[in-house]
């Protein structure tokens, strides 16, 4: 079958299976889960999301099921389309620091930790990446683009050629073609034509997921203290792997619990912060933990691993196969505020809106070390926020724990200014 990567010159894939590293990852997940459980007044409905990370139940489920599994990265892979082909999408963006060292045997040292960590799980094995039959990779940033070539040593990798601008007139026709190309690939792979009814059901299901998320968002907006942001991100990131109807049911349950909890007044938060910038991914909740420990609280985020993932939904103008593919193309491109696109303004708009919605006291800009894109967007964001008298703190860090004390000092100083 056609591949996006030539194999005329090839590497032998490096495999370093290591129980020690896998145990380290399990420990990291369990430690974080334990810390989250200790928060007083934590809603019991959150524990179902946590099992996604603390147990290997879902991994076993995927192994046992005869459905094909497709690994995805970033924001831009139309999961509805995969679902219509009975393919289970699993988002592979990784937050484990343990897999970075093994990845460096192959990858250069000076690339972003997210890519290294994600690639490391291929080297170490034993995780979700191993269960994938194919990997679908949008060419969002340089590191992700080249990551495809490395991953192609392990699994078949399909590229989605992501444009660099979001200009509708120029980019939409191209991106629709790209989505249709993915459809054709899926058709050839599964040996089935795309079923209109199945795609419609899938889009309907994801609309429902988005509706539930929006309900949660509105509740959180009204009562920011009802759930910690670490729990919030954890629940969202459970959807990276979870079966969609199951996730929806769990989220609906959470909605009910929050409704019940907010009958009694929720303690007001002293300092409310908005988190933006590079994705914070389980279990790298380092900066959230620091902020929580210092008595402030992140109440909202604008990250592709958080809010962005579940907020948007596809809304076809017409429910023909073509119309639905077009709607998916729009859904998985235009609302994204990824810095891989030329403009920063859309992101600024979203930030300002969220800052207004949550009435926040400051903004935390998470700058993942060696991600030039987020780094370069920071200037405009900070200038606009400064004009609006909104304090902003940049945390320039990576997945490691070495700089925790230093970050703590910086956050403390920032909180002093706000207070």
């Amino acid at each position, binding site marked *: 079958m056609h591949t996006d990567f030539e194999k005329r010159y090839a590497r032998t894939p490096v495999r370093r299976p290591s129980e020690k590293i896998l145990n380290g990852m399990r420990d990291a997940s369990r430690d974080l889960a334990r810390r989250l459980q200790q928060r007083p007044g934590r809603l019991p409905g959150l524990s179902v999301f946590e099992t996604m990370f603390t147990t290997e139940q879902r991994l076993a489920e995927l192994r046992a099921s005869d459905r094909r599994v497709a690994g995805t990265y970033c924001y831009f892979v139309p999961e509805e389309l995969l679902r219509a082909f009975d393919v289970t999408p699993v988002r592979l963006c990784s937050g484990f620091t343990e897999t970075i060292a093994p990845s460096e045997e192959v990858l250069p040292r000076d690339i972003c930790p997210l890519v290294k960590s994600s690639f490391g799980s291929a080297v170490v094995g034993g995780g979700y990446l191993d269960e994938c039959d194919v990997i679908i990779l949008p060419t969002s940033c340089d590191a992700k683009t080249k990551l495809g070539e490395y991953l192609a040593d392990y699994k078949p990798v399909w590229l989605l050629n992501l444009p660099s601008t*979001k200009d*509708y*007139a120029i980019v*939409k*026709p191209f991106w629709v073609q790209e989505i249709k190309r993915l459809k054709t690939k899926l058709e050839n792979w599964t040996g089935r034509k795309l079923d*209109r009814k199945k795609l419609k059901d899938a889009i*309907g299901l994801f*609309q429902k997921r988005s509706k539930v998320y929006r309900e949660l968002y509105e509740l959180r907006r009204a009562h920011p203290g009802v759930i910690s942001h670490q729990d919030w991100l954890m629940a969202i990131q459970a959807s990276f792997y979870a079966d969609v109807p199951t996730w929806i049911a769990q989220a609906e349950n959470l909605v009910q619990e929050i409704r019940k909890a907010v009958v009694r007044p929720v303690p007001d938060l002293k300092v409310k912060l908005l988190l933006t910038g590079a994705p914070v991914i389980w279990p790298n909740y380092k900066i959230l933990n620091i902020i929580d420990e210092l008595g402030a609280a992140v109440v909202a985020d604008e990250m592709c691993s958080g809010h962005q993932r579940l*907020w*948007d*939904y596809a*809304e*076809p*103008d*017409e*429910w*023909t*196969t*073509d*119309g639905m593919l*077009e*709607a998916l193309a*729009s*859904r998985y*491109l*235009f*609302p994204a505020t990824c810095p891989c696109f030329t403009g920063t*303004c*859309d992101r600024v*708009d*979203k930030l*300002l*809106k969220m800052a*207004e919605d949550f009435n926040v006291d400051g903004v935390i800009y998470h700058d993942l070390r060696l991600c030039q894109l987020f780094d370069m967007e920071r200037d405009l964001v900070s200038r606009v926020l400064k004009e609006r008298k909104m304090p902003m703190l940049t945390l320039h860090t990576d997945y490691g724990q070495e700089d925790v004390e230093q970050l703590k000092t910086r956050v403390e100083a920032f909180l002093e200014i706000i207070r």
Partner: protein
Amino acid sequence: MVWHKITWSRRVVQVLSFLFLFYGATLLNLKPQEIKWYSLDGKNQKMAELLYANPTWTQPFQTFLPGRSCRFAGTTGTFRGCLMYFLSDTLTWRPPWKVILPSLALLLGLMVLLARFWCGWLCPIGFLSEMLNEARRFTGLARIKFPAWWLATLKAAGYALTAALLFSAWAISWSFVAWSVKKPLYLATCQICPSKLITPLLTGFPVMINLQFPGASTALLVTLFVLLVMFTLLYFSSAVMKRSWCKLCPGGVILSFFNRGSFLTKEKDALRCTKCAICADACPMETLAVYEEKSRVIVDHTQCIQCYRCVDLCPEKKCLTVKFLGLPIFKS
């Protein structure tokens, strides 16, 4: 699935409007004056003014509407004709002000009040073209998208056509223009309108198409007929291309000048917008104006037929609002 209440209410209004404009006289048992659409005296090769024999002060249902209240709805329809018919006829006959004033005042009032809301909600021809499109959607066949250059061509052609039709209506009143030109160009707007074929098809009103007429230029008659066939084909292509004729319609072009500054306004809260492009996908006129506007509040533009599909499908609460005289009537 999301419940689209604006689209559904629009469908109800469209059906009622269609029934009223095309079959109102029959359904409500009104007795409209028979329309004498052969108002030319062919025998003496002279114009014979019959249309304004009766002033319309006392006949509210015998006047004109901005939408396609087509004259070819004949005896079953409720109104005398559409905006283009009135303008062409007035330019040709130039009757005294007191005769045309009621119709003119009504038309202007309705245009300022609703502008291209007429196209989106009330025009029966626009409604039928949407029904053609709905039929195609039902079969699951793909839609054909207009490329940008073709959209621009249609827009420019619409302006050119409107200007040409109004100019010809005026020019045939000049005494030095030959009868062979006058005759075929009389009400040229109706001679080329797809509604000339579609409306009689629905109402059973007899329509004659003469490719030869005593004393009239056959070349012109044939040219107009070719245009009629072309535009009718364009109209029927709305099954696969959304609102294809409406992108050219001369009546729409005139209404489009009233879109900004009419009582209806469409407003956008740019900060609430996530740029998801659902509005751009949904627009039946395939414009990007609402999507691309990121700073101004009012997003009315000439091409908008005020169907509010964008408002209906917009996933962000209160991002798009339709206001009538400042009062919100629809919200996303």
